[in-house]
């Protein structure tokens, strides 16, 4: 399982704007580089990231070549109710990784 770091506040006040931060380990090989022998290093990147909250999609990003290795994504959302965030990264060569985090909204 590839390593992921997600940071979601454990608690928030209802209606507060919260920041969600995610860091995923991945080489993000752009597919433009060549080996010393002149062969193209095949592309191997994460192509999409999705965040769902209690089942509903709240954030999605498409990723492209020439993004740094170990992509860091952060975004904001409004704390509406207690529940669970689910994160999913999908990429080349069948790459799939997931993570989740709970929040209590009071």
């Amino acid at each position, binding site marked *: 399982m590839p*390593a*992921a*770091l*997600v*940071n979601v506040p454990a608690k928030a006040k209802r209606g507060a704007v919260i920041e969600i*931060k*995610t*860091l995923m*380990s991945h080489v*993000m090989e752009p597919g433009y580089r060549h080996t010393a022998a002149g062969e193209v290093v095949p592309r191997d990147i994460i192509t999409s990231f999705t965040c769902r909250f209690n089942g509903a999609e709240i954030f999605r990003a498409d990723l492209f070549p020439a993004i*740094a*290795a*170990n992509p*860091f994504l*952060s975004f904001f959302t409004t704390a509406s109710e207690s529940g669970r965030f689910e994160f999913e990264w999908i990429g080349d060569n069948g790459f799939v990784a997931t993570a989740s985090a709970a929040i209590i909204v009071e």
Partner: protein
Amino acid sequence: MMRRAAIAILALLGAALPGLAGEIGESARRSGYEFMSADTKAMQDDNTANPAMLSVLDGETLWRTKAGAAGKSCSDCHGAVDVSMKGVAARYPAFNAASGAPVDLGQRVNLCRRQHQEAEPFAPESRELLALTALIARQSRGMPITAGDDPRLAPSVAHGRALFMQRQGQLNLACTNCHDDNWDKHLAGSAITQAQPTGYPIYRLEWQGMGSLQRRLRGCMTGVRAQAYDFDAPDMIALELYLTSRAHGMAVEAPAVRP
């Protein structure tokens, strides 16, 4: 090319500069962190944005993985890493009685691989070795560096210091020419810094990955067009030991981010 040209210019400058400043006083010492941009500092400070923490996570898994003919994991012998490895990295490189010589943290891990797990040692700069050393080094974060205190290491520290002072390579520059005499200047846009080894292993943005202090030192040797020491060569360990003794009392900030 830009960087090469700049190094050559600095070499000329170095030759022309009168009365070099010499070693850095204790109160003037600065970690590489202090030379970084606000963005890079923020990346290091936030454990969920610091990519080196991915390596630490990796290390936590390896810590608990049984390996070798002995079928033992690190935790089988050492228990919880945050207890048994607290402060350990701050005193490495340390004296190894069996070999009568200093070993750095990576070598110490590989001694356990070989002797206690009865497994193949990890290759230098391998994902596994970087992950385990990052995990162990993190348990010393904020603690003062004490490596080199052991009197049995005095000859190695002195040897490392001599290497630091010795000119080498086609550019004929010693470490001291840049890191003691010109640490407040820039080279091709990079801060030269004082070469304080406070953050290793590091996540280096230029590498887009993790690397050890040895890898960083090899980079500087290649930079002056010298033949870089081999990984784990006795001179390499002595140089690491001199750098850590020179940073005596500075806080460990591993695993750090560097530009």
